[in-house]
């Protein structure tokens, strides 16, 4: 059973990615073929034919950080974790500062961090640490996925 904040955060994360990307298609609880399990948010840039962004959301920073091992095995050029700001315990805060677990030393790419912020108007999301591109050329998979799955948010005609 997912936490209410985690469910509410999907929209906030989507808005955050929409601000950074160009007419992306957004999918919630997406069965991204290159992930072992469903991903919380999938954004495919440029109307579904561009770069794929995979986001895993957890209320607590430590839970989000625990997902990075799995996320490093998920093929997608951009990968993110999102969690509620202020939920970091000491160990997690140190690990995040050191970017521990966010990348593989021998390869390009770094998992990005999105902060979830509780505001009077609802939940907001901001990038704390930008994701860096992983060398996964998966345009064909992304295009096929966007053609065969209805997006929750999409632009265009």
């Amino acid at each position, binding site marked *: 059973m997912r936490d209410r904040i985690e469910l509410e955060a999907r929209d906030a994360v989507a808005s955050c990615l929409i601000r950074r990307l*160009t007419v992306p298609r957004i999918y919630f609880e997406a069965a991204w073929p290159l992930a072992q399990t469903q991903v919380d948010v999938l954004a495919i840039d440029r*109307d579904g034919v561009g770069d794929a962004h995979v986001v895993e959301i957890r209320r607590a920073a430590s839970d989000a950080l625990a997902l990075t091992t799995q996320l490093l095995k998920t093929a997608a050029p951009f990968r993110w974790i999102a969690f509620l700001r202020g939920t970091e315990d000491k160990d997690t805060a140190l690990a995040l500062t050191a970017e521990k677990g966010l990348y593989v030393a021998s390869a390009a790419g770094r998992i990005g961090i999105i902060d979830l912020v509780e505001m009077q108007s609802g939940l907001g999301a901001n990038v704390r640490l930008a994701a860096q*591109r992983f060398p996964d050329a998966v345009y064909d998979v992304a295009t096929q996925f966007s053609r065969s799955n209805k997006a929750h948010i999409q632009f265009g005609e």
Partner: protein
Amino acid sequence: MLHYRERADSFSRTIKDLEILDRDAHAPAIGLLSIHGSIALADAVLVAVEGTRAKGEDHSEAARKLRKWCSANTFGDGGVKHFEWLLGNKNRFSYDDERVDASHLLLAKVKMDQFFAWAFQTFPDVAQIREAEDA
């Protein structure tokens, strides 16, 4: 091609920043950036498919070239009408003596998004050329 698409991306991202700052207050800038962002993306597409962009100050040649290319290659040209709408409002948004309503100016952003979506779907090579390393 990348140069033109980067210009289109820059205009598109600036529009989002302006929307966050104060969408209504910046509506005239959003309208103009939507037009010029679309012109830049049309240039990127034409360079990709024909090797050269359109010449001419009114940019209507670019729309004609896009329609012609789509017709010759049996591609749908549904997005070109949004580009033409934007071009048709360029002088009005830029120089007209009469005030342009904010809703009309902001509609330009919707038209740009529609044109962008069509362009990326129809010309995926333009969408998939190498981007920045950071997201």
